[in-house]
């Protein structure tokens, strides 16, 4: 049995396969009946131990488009403070003959723990500051569709990289697809001891002209004051894509954001609907990528890596 816990679970062949299947599902999503029976009779459990609207909705809809049943488990965080109870929940689900689970959890490593039980395929829907592999896949795929190739393209990831599971999965995937990654943010919110292939900048203005993709991360409001940041105004002056910066932006740049956007913090409202923004496309591809991942995990004997010719 195979899982999607980390982007490292996928080799390049897997990534290409996910992308090619996603392309097919894009077409399905444009049909009058936006549904195929590929996973009829299967059940996907949505195990969200941390609030999430986007990812959960996206997975749920993706499953339904594949005729896969879904069940949502609302488990309060308090009852799942210990690893054993998470395992108990998983075993209960397994007894109920659930075929696959998406896990969102506030603690890093939760999805891996669940996967290690090998009860059913586990998809990491975001674990603490750890990873968010399907987000990385959909981001890369959306950008790839727009730019045709990512080889040699310059991707700047802007914001609170330190606390971002999206960035952690993304850095690896962007790099693997041939893009050059630069992390942009206050040094208080950038990871230290980075791999050599990652560049760092402390000012958005330094990288704007040279970036093909500007990927903005969501900044947690609670971090704006305190020991990491110096308030909204200072942050915006350094890192926000404001109306003014938008005026000086390259015509062919691509603007991305994993959502939900903090309007008026990392992006001005004008930016979201700018023609260079592909934020809405990201949401759309979220569905097709998650449909592809579910199909691969649930329909294949052996899942990834062991795809019959």
């Amino acid at each position: 049995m195979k899982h999607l816990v980390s982007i490292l679970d996928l080799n390049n062949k897997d990534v290409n396969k996910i992308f090619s299947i996603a392309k097919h599902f894009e077409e399905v999503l444009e049909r009058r009946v936006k549904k195929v029976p590929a996973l009829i009779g299967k059940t996907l459990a949505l195990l969200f131990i941390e609030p999430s609207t986007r990812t959960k909705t996206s997975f749920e809809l993706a499953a339904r488009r594949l005729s896969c049943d879904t069940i949502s488990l609302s488990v309060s965080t308090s009852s799942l403070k210990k690893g054993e109870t998470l395992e108990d929940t998983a075993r209960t689900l397994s007894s109920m003959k659930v075929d696959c689970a998406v896990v969102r959890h506030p603690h890093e490593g939760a999805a891996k723990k669940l996967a290690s039980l090998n009860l059913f395929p586990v998809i990491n829907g975001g674990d603490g500051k750890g990873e968010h592999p399907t987000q990385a896949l959909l981001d890369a795929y959306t950008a790839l569709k727009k730019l045709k190739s990512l080889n040699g393209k310059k991707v700047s990831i802007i914001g609170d990289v330190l606390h971002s599971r999206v960035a952690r999965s993304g850095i690896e995937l962007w790099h693997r697809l041939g893009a050059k990654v630069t992390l942009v943010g206050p040094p208080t919110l950038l990871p230290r001891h980075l791999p050599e292939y990652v560049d760092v900048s402390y000012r958005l203005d330094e990288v704007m002209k040279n970036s093909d993709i500007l990927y903005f991360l969501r900044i947690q409001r609670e971090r704006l004051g305190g020991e990491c940041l110096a308030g909204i105004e200072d942050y915006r002056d350094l890192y926000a894509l404001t109306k003014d910066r938008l005026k000086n932006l390259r015509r062919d740049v691509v603007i991305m954001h994993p959502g939900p956007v903090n309007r008026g913090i990392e992006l001005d409202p004008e930016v979201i609907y700018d023609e260079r923004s592909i934020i809405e496309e990201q949401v759309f591809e979220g569905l097709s990528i998650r449909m592809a991942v579910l199909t691969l995990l649930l329909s294949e004997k052996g899942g990834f890596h062991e795809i019959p010719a």
Partner: protein
Amino acid sequence: MKYLLKKGTVVCPITCKESELDVLIDNGMIVRVEKGISDKKALALDASQCIVMPGFIDLHAHLREPGEEEKETLYTGAKAALAGGFVRVVCMPNTEPPLSTSFLIKAVAQSDASSLFCRVLPTGSLSKNREGKEIAELNLMAKAGAVAFSDDGSSIQSAGLMRSLMLYSLTTKKPLFLHEEDVNLSPQTCIHEGKASFVTGVEGTPSSAEAVMIARDILLAEETGARVHFQHLSSKESITLLRNAKKKGIQVTAEVTPHHLVLTEDETVSLNPLFKVNPPLRSTEDRNALEEALVEGVIDVIATDHAPHTKEEKTREFELAPPGIAGLETALPLLYTYFVEKKIIDLRRLVEVFSINPAKVLGKKVFAIREGERAELTVINTAESRKVNPEKFFSKSKLSPFQGFELYGWPEYVFVEGELRFLKGDFPLEERRSKGVD
């Protein structure tokens, strides 16, 4: 306007000059530096008993505006700094309210006094409102004109916040000026723990209160790569730490004040509040270590820590009087008389610690005396001595622990931004303005 400085001893480590030369200044620029210049259109200034040096910079002064204008204002502070021979003065943000927003920084940076006297360069607070809890808007303040960041007067107690501040400061490339004092070790009495505390019975501040924070911040500076400058070092332990850090190649710099170089705890035994400073005047051994570090180059900068107070406050009981002394107008003669005259340091070193190194700490272009440079000059008279008379200070604070000291090396002429702004006790620009000529 043309000026001709005649027969001064020109000391400029940048151009390697140290000889009797004339300097011709035209339209603010140095146009010739050589022997025997004559130019009848130029206003001749006799410098035959003078030393002509690149303009001096004070990295550490409290100008009290806004909020405590009864102690000092930007106007009187900039004037006192100019009279003390300085062309630039960096003012600390412990005002009321503190210089913690870009708005206030801009107000200070654009002060009118800067165009009449010594140019005032503001420092923004490191932590928001100097509360030691959150990061202040360093980037916006830097854009508004802050040249450095400091919580001077207090010390960042949390190592976590200090590390964050160092990291965040990298967005601005500006240095952090650190007042180092662990409040868990310091009773903040401004009495050295040693002879002074023993004799007076006042609880003393041990040298370790400073040194442990220096040690911590050397480690953090090394880790983060931030530009750290230690303010007013007072103890031999701190010097040892600094010396080792520099040997290791860690990018830290440090300043020492004239009063810590000249005075010791012996002066505080009498509990005369005029000698109350923070950090406290320490032992003779400490003073000797500071002097040695000054000679050796471990100390980079002399800074005044000019901290004016009203007579009412400063003449209360030692315990109740605020720490700090007005130092802008005595720093240069003190250093000249006690160190250059006594041949402990030479003139080139004097220029280094007062002009070249402060400019480097700020990351600014150093001043030099050569053709094509704008005139930023500090010219001192070394032939005539004068007694320190605080009543004649241009600072609002008319008090000094050096009252009655007979000193050499008083400023004679000072050129700021190409203009002759100080001329033997007169302020030509101020006079012109008051006469309505501009």
